[in-house]
């Protein structure tokens, strides 16, 4: 495999388990075994260079945990991430992350100019103060802010502008791989459009690879090349974006898509299925989706399904073969 064809990232059988904090009584007197949350439980995927791979799923399914592991903020319990060779640490691709809450992730006491210049100085990417300054102003321009904004503080900006500042800071490190965890969830649709257009421009100009995390399915459809659907720490379906949206196979993917209101063809008489989001603390045995699944059989309640392949789709469902027909 040539260097160019090597995927930007190969994730192999990644798990991340957390011990739940126990009360002193349970631990020492009653001697109860500690409980585990399997936030991520054995997921594998590949992201080709210059493409966008998205993860979708309901709150608590493990999306942010995957993001944090990819950028090294969280160590996997098991499994490996193989990055392509690049300009980052240990000769791997240089990776940066954009967070959901653009305010929490910016230091309120620093001027915007310093926030953006910091990674440039840290990594020694520019020679001297003048050069650093010029690069910083260039980055402000790239994300659609003005040179004057360098002297202002984060609280003087709107949510969308703050997200631009965090994108500029992430770009300052000259990343080759960008992890975006819900980059537009806190923003208005108009600002979301500005940010999504900006991310698309950066990808075509700089050849960036994205891991994009969102529960907004229409944003995911817009930006992705491949999409993984997660449920309780596992990827239940993974496929090219058109396959996921036009031919969803897994009962959970079908359910998710049917829950999103369609702007031009709204279903005003919708009778939604009542669901409660599952907890990863006590997942049901067998296929963890079985309590919500209209197709669940006895087998589903006992054994967890393995991955199977339908064309370009990877799916974990005992009834995958039937899904081909629908």
């Amino acid at each position, binding site marked *: 495999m040539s260097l160019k064809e090597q995927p930007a990232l190969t994730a192999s059988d990644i798990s991340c388990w957390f011990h739940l904090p126990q009360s002193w009584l349970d631990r020492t007197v009653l001697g109860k075994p500690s409980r585990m949350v399997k936030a991520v439980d054995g997921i594998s995927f590949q992201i080709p260079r210059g493409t966008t791979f998205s993860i979708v799923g*309901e*709150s608590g399914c493990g999306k942010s945990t995957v993001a944090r592991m990819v950028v090294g903020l969280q160590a996997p319990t098991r499994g490996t991430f193989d990055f392509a060779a690049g300009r980052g640490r240990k000769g791997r691709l240089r990776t940066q992350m954009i967070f959901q809450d653009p305010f929490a992730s910016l230091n309120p006491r620093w001027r915007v100019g310093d926030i953006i210049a910091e990674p440039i100085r840290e990594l020694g990417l520019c020679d001297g103060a003048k050069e650093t300054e010029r690069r910083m102003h260039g980055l402000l321009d790239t994300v659609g802010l003005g040179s004057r904004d360098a002297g202002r503080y984060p609280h003087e900006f*709107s*949510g*969308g*502008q703050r997200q631009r500042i965090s994108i500029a800071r992430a770009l300052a490190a000259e990343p080759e791989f960008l992890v975006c965890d819900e980059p537009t969830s806190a923003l*208005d*649709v*108009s*600002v*979301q*459009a*500005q940010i*999504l*257009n900006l991310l*698309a421009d950066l990808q075509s100009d700089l050849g960036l690879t994205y891991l994009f995390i969102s*529960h907004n*399915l*229409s*944003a995911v*459809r*817009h930006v992705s090349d491949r999409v993984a659907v997660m449920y309780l720490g596992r990827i239940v379906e993974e496929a090219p*974006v058109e396959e996921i*949206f036009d031919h969803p196979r897994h009962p959970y993917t079908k*359910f*998710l*898509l049917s*829950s*999103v*209101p*369609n*702007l*031009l063809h*709204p*279903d*005003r008489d*919708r*009778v*939604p*299925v*009542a*669901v*409660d*989001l599952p907890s990863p603390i006590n997942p049901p045995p067998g296929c963890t989706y079985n309590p919500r699944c209209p197709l669940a059989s006895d087998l589903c309640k006992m054994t967890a399904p393995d991955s199977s392949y339908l064309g370009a789709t990877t799916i974990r469902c005992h009834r995958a073969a039937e899904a081909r027909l629908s």
Partner: protein
Amino acid sequence: MTIAPVHISPHAPAHSAGAVLDIRKLVVEFPTRRGILTAIRGIDLTIGRGEILGVVGESGAGKSLTGTAVIGLLESSGRVAEGEIHVCGRRIDNLPRREMQKLRGRTIGAIFQDPLTSLNPLLTVGDQLTETMRVHLPLSRAQAADRAIKLLQEVGIPSPELRITQYPHQFSGGMRQRVVIALALCAEPELVIADEPTTALDVSIQAQITALLKRVCRDRGTAMMLITHDMGVIAETADRVAVMYAGRIVEIGPVASIIRAPRHPYTKGLIGSIPSLTDRRERLVQIDGAMPRLNAMPSGCAFHPRCRYANEQCRNDRPPLLPAGTSEAACWHLDREEVSHVA
């Protein structure tokens, strides 16, 4: 002039007895040391029985303030400076605080984005429901408890007889929001103000909550102001939509017209900026710039710095809200081909 098509103008019932909510020329101000900030700059709207009016617009447009003015919960630094608010034919913007308190919960219910702010963490869900009901309705404790169980059932909470003994933290986010809805509805209000009721929720839970709100309005004839920036929710739920920009309504009309044939350049931008679930466009429509700050309100049409059709007239004079198809829109150039072109 051609004869206008038959439609119920959003202002036709304005001063008739039929409207549950009738807002007339509402102005909300925040006096500060450096001058008066006018956040709501003259709003007229009505909501009829069983009707859901969606209110949309970017953050800072004044959606929440309009709602809080109606429920009489403006922060003490703010005030209704001009205009009137009528609910079921009664003027409420000048009521004494105690009178307003009685109205809240009884005649007007409120649902906010974060269910935890509306629930008391120290009381069981059942106690909160029964206490609220007994403040407003002549019910015995047993009758109220009975109704609480029915209400929880109605909002889709399984095993309500067990659930009423539990505390809010024992509920999931979606279930908490359903409890808030039950609380807002328990005294059978005529009007419900729902401010971003589903924004923090997953799509699956969101679908349940919006279906529930719709059912309540249809079955009980409750009027609802549904504030959200999620156009998908609006498309499935609202009957009419008001689009707000910089403290004013810039377009108002039936939901299908607003979404499929928006007239105002701002509405068009908003709709165009939403990625589609069914087909992929190369680029999203982008409205450059941002909502103006209250202390730097542009002259004329407040949208002019961001509008590509803006000309001299737009910069100098404020456009009034005038009929445009089945809607009303505030824009000088609706009759210009490129402006009125339906995308």
